[in-house]
């Protein structure tokens, strides 16, 4: 038989927790073939199921939420009552069956559930467990609860978004959670590599805060070296001029930038300002910055008469950095994203067809894909507990009777 088409086929992952920071790790790995079991309880389903719109036809319900679905495609969904001793015993069995446990509950909770790393390791010596929380498992504020949308502010990113001297600006959703989930997935794969090589497991402690700071490593080092405190600067950049977003026809916007005098000359020709090419004042960045008002006004006059997509095409042909400012709706018709299959529609029993986000990278030999729509609450109890854990029908019936499945 030839090689499996899935890079991560055979990797078994169990997730305890909810929202974005934990489950998004499993989603990314499931898209490359890992078997990922998402554990919830009927009493407390994943918070993304009920607390965040949009819902199918506007009706909130445990199985009608697009937000939950978006981060849990390609997974198996089970329910367990973790307050029930037999539910906890099953959670433990699942953890022993798996190679990787991912949890993003508050520090201490997983231990109280009897699923502490050391307790599991005794029976699953090569277990990899990743814990992700706001502050990490240790330190004076380890027990801080929190959502990523707010943590993004603590990590300095919101304060670096906005016009000069204005209010900080919201970044949509829990921005920092996705930094932590992406870096967390990197750590899980690194641990799997070590496990393959040495047979040892790993305990991975992800502070979402610290993960987010990796995306500001430069400004943090600059402060360390020079004392300069980075501030928000609208769309300006110290190394390019022009560098900004400009209003176009039909309500659109275009982002464009020039990084050299040659590129600026190309822009000048493209937008009907050839006299700028011979004007020594505009040759250097400083000169263009001094004339920002004139330059921006001329660009605006040109872009406002064109749709963003055609303006961007003209400028790119001239050798100028430019792209339409895509709205969420535009993302579904962006020719580049469409050509690369960014959105993969899968059928969900309640939501119907939903567009799921494909991986951000393509592998030439073992491509990733959205293998299935997100699971309904507890949809895969039978499959997971019978097929994966080997419980008999009568075992399952007894456990159901005892309330283990939540």
């Amino acid at each position, binding site marked *: 038989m030839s090689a499996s088409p899935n890079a*991560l086929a055979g990797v078994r992952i169990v997730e305890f927790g909810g929202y974005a920071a934990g489950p998004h790790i499993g989603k990314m790995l499931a898209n490359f073939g890992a078997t990922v079991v998402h554990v919830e309880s009927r009493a407390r389903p994943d918070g993304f199921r009920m607390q*965040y719109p949009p819902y199918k036809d506007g009706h909130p319900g445990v199985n009608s939420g*697009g937000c939950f679905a978006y981060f849990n495609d390609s997974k198996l969904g089970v329910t367990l009552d973790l307050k029930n001793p037999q539910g906890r015993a099953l959670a433990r069995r699942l953890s022993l069956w798996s190679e990787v446990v991912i949890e993003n509950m508050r520090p201490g909770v997983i231990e109280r559930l009897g699923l502490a790393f050391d307790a599991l390791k005794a029976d699953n010596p090569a277990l990899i467990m990743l814990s992700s929380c706001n502050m990490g498992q240790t330190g004076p504020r380890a027990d801080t609860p929190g959502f990523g949308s707010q943590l993004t502010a603590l990590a300095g990113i919101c304060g670096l978004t906005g016009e000069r001297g204005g209010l900080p600006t919201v970044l*949509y959703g829990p921005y920092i959670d996705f930094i932590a989930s992406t870096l967390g997935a990197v750590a899980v794969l690194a641990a799997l590599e070590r496990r393959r090589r040495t047979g040892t497991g790993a305990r991975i402690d992800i502070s979402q805060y610290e993960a987010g700071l990796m995306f500001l490593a430069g400004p943090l080092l600059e402060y360390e070296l020079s004392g300069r405190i980075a501030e928000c600067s609208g769309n300006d950049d110290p190394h390019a001029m022009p560098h900004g977003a400009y209003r176009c026809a039909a309500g659109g916007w275009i982002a464009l930038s020039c990084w050299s005098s040659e590129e600026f000359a190309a822009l000048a020709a493209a937008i009907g300002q050839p006299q700028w090419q011979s004007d020594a004042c505009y040759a250097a960045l400083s000169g263009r910055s001094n004339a920002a008002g004139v330059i921006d006004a001329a660009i605006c006059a040109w872009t406002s008469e064109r749709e963003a997509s055609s303006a961007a095409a003209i400028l790119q042909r001239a050798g100028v950095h430019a792209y339409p400012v895509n709205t969420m709706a535009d993302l579904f018709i962006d020719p580049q994203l469409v050509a690369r299959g960014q959105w993969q529609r899968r059928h969900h029993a309640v939501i119907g067809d939903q567009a799921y986000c494909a991986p951000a990278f393509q592998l030439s030999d073992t491509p*990733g894909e959205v293998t299935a729509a997100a699971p309904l609450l507890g949809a895969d109890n039978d499959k997971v507990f019978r097929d994966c854990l080997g419980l008999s029908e009568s075992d399952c019936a007894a456990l159901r009777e005892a309330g283990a499945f939540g």
Partner: protein
Amino acid sequence: MLKGLQVLDCTDRLGWLAGRLLADLGAEVAKIEAPHAEVHSPEWRALNVNKQLVRLDLSRHSGQFELDRLAAGADILLATFRPGTPEAALFDHGRLSALNARLIVVAISPFGLSGPKASWLASDLELMAASGAMSLAGEPEGTPLRISAPQSYSWAGAQAALGALTALAARARTGRGQRVDVSAQAATIVALAHAPTFVDIAGTTPLRSGAFVTGRSMHGARYRVFWPCRDGFVNFILYGGVAGTRSLAQLVSWMRECGAPLGALTQLDSSSWDPTLATQAEVDALESPIAAFFSTVTKREFLEQAHRREMLGYPVNTVADIAADPQLAARGFWQDVTGADDRIERHCGCFAIIDGERPPLVVGSAPRAASPEETQST
């Protein structure tokens, strides 16, 4: 965890973070730079620390020959290029795999190697536009904004590291390397949370909302996120759910202890309050006394009280606030390495604690190997 893994990092700014993440997890990363390329900026140093600098002139045959020699013994090659450029031929997976069938070639480009815009130019600004992120940031009627510190490069680099290790897992079974084609545009879409689903399921397009959050109330009410405080701003949102209503109750009790006017908060039953059902008038009445109260507290006070009372919310930190945060110091986040002029530099350490320890940075940011000749002996 990646001990012994040999990585050749031929990236520009778009891909620097990928090698940094792999290096921090234990890989041996050689950072290839042209003979006179600038390697002293804070940005370069921050994202290339823990890598070994190797100077190679890839525009010359001797440099290309040396690259091939290094690629023959490497596990992963990271490169940033657009299709149709000379670099695309140099870093072509087909060419390199003939030298080393196990080599994983990670190609990081603005839009990926295929598609009608694969050869388009993009810096961080255009990538933030192309991914949709800018449409979600800024004032509702104002200009769409990027984040002032470039982010799309980090999203691309992080996904590139993920792609490299996914291909490494495949190689463990197949014995063969493959090409990883990373689109920075697609990588940055990850930053949007579930915003695209509104188009798909509800037929609506989320837009930027300044310092407010929308999309939580069935009646379209918007909630304030950023509030001026005595020395900057704090982030606090009227949330629902167990943690959200507890936060609100705790805030009210803090305000009461301080003797702050409670206004509409006096009548509020925080345990049953549901933000998804609130109207804008109700939200405004609740937020007014909170705004007055927050204007009297400092960021540090807010952080301490939020922690003590288990309130959801954080101050809006600057890099200076972050540098002084005791939580980060207690966890050994900052790592000292030797930088230029043998000066000690404090860098962000590895992003994770593994088996109870933060893997140390082992290579400083000061250029070591000044020429290919020196490198060849290492």
